[in-house]
């Protein structure tokens, strides 16, 4: 660190212009915080009374105007689990390559970085188009032609295609978070391990990755939270309005909390009757994604603090 005089140490009595500026920017901050509070508040107030064991454990009834949302919870969990199994290893490996193996001036690493950055900026609906055009119409259809005699088995919206589409969407989240964590592992640890005779891969596996675990977990949690809340990419790749059964195979369709909210909000013939259910579903979805986010934020804060202390 450079020996810099902290700005705060120079005390100058704020004049009118200063005060106005501080007031205005402070107000802007307050408004953004209020946006967060008002969404949370409205959903919690609206949904709290609906939450019950029945709501969480039962299937929808009577044209989705009664009953619970268990199939949607189940589908969301299954979807994000599958997604994580693909996205986390792929993301961690990418980050390991970028920060441990790639030479400093590597062209390839630059291209990978550009691709990751662009992947993060692709609109989620485009991922939906891609999932439909690639996974279902091409890969799935190909599997059907080869293995199932043209019988539509994998060439249709399925759990596996939705999960893979989401895995690509959340890949940047894992990569960015893991890379940040890997970078914060002190060089001395690597050098020490190598000096003791460990190979590079052993060093990465036994020294670097365990040290970076906090950051990797943050990335994984953020990815799960993001994946659990996305609707646009799964609309055409596997989510179903209503299913009388739970998905048990990779090529089954599934219900999903976010999609359920969309369906109830737009397709219901009687919005007033479904409104409590809608609030309940939104609250469950929000609790799920929000809790994960809070955990991620806390883990990251701790991790950063520890890393700062280690330096």
């Amino acid at each position, binding site marked *: 660190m450079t020996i*810099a*005089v902290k*700005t705060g140490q*120079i005390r*100058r009595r704020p*004049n009118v*212009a*200063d005060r106005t*500026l*501080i007031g205005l*920017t*402070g107000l802007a*901050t307050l408004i953004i915080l209020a946006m*967060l509070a008002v969404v949370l508040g*409205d959903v919690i107030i609206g949904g709290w009374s609906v939450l019950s064991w029945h709501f969480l454990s039962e299937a929808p009834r009577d044209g989705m105007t009664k009953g619970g949302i268990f199939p949607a919870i189940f589908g969301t969990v299954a979807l994000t689990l599958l997604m994580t199994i693909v996205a986390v290893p792929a993301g961690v*490996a*990418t980050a*390991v*390559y*970028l920060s441990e193996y790639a030479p400093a001036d590597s062209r390839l690493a630059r291209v*990978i970085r*550009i*691709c*990751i*950055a*662009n*992947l993060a*900026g*692709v*609109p*989620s*609906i*485009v*991922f*939906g*188009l*891609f999932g439909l*055009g*690639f996974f279902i*119409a091409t890969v799935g259809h190909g599997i059907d032609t080869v293995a199932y005699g043209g019988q539509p088995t994998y060439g249709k919206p399925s759990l596996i295609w939705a999960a893979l589409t989401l895995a690509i969407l959340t*890949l*940047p989240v894992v990569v960015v978070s893991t890379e940040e964590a890997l970078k914060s592992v002190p060089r001395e640890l690597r*050098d020490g391990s*190598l*000096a003791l*005779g460990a*190979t*590079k*891969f052993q060093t990465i596996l036994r020294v670097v990755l365990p040290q970076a675990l906090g950051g990797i977990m943050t990335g994984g949690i953020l990815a799960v939270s993001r994946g659990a*809340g*996305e*609707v646009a990419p799964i609309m055409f790749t596997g989510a179903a309005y209503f299913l009388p059964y739970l998905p048990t195979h990779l090529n089954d369709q599934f219900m999903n909390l*976010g999609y359920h*909210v*969309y369906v109830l909000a737009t397709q219901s013939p009687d919005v007033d009757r479904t409104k409590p259910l809608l609030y309940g579903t*939104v609250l469950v*979805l*929000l609790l799920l994604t*929000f809790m994960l986010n809070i955990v991620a934020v806390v883990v990251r*804060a701790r991790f950063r603090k520890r890393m700062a202390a280690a330096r």
Partner: protein
Amino acid sequence: MASTTTTAVPAMSRPSRPGLARRIRWTERIAEGLVLLVSLVSILSVLLILIFVGKEALPVLFSPEVHREVTPGAMVLPYADAGYMWQPVSDVPKYNILPLFVGTLKVTLVALFVSVPLSVGAAVYVCEFAPRAAREYIKPAIELLAGIPSVVIGFFALIVLATWVQRVFGVEHRLNALVAGFGLAFAVCPVIFSVSEDALRAVPDSYRTAALALGSTRSQTLLRVILPAAAPGIAAAIVLGFGRAIGETMIVVLASGNAALLDADLGHSIRTVTATIAQELGEVVVGSAHYHVLFALGALLFLSTLGVNVVGERIVFRMRRRMGGP
């Protein structure tokens, strides 16, 4: 650095077990190869998205079968009898995409108009004025706003914001460009905030101390020194926020009213490019003209966000290099 130390490893293990060194070398190579292979997935994904969205979009330009129903010209020029109309499901389907793009532009402008002052202001406050203790809560809280799923914000806009907007602005239609734009601001603010905050943080402390030492007030320091220095980064933040806004789907699907009208009135319902794809692709016949037109819309969307993001990232990159940051 590290490479000089690795060469010592085989030398050390050689005397004790001769086969081991070779085996270790092979494991190392295989491991590195696998890691490299997996990290190519990101490149592959971008290419596959380009190829497979492009593949379904291109028939709009080249397929005579599609041209029997719609030509690229007809997608931008007005219909003689109906003007600028998007009505793909009717006896004579109409595919004019201008109302959709104007719709997207309308909500995006509303969203930016709201979120640019708010999030740049908040970034300035957090970076320059906030007490340190407050800063540690404000930043994660705004990050949490980014973690709210867009379908939840869309729902909130549909049920709550729409009522408020109708009460305040007295608009005729409950769901309109204003409601969708305000909803969109919830998603755009965190993006602009965090990139602007990074930009402000990248301004070296010496700029601040020098300006203050020369006798400027805090507002002069901010307006004449810090903001100009961080301007490219803040511009990038706005560009990235724009990219986020035009690509957002669920908020506009729920809150915009979804009527493809071509006018400048913010109180009217609109239909965006993303919402059109989301609502129509589910019901469309695979391989029909309508299907290909929807993919063409997706391709246009993909290319425009790609362009926007490349520009944004470049500005951020250059600014970091100039400031000597990471």
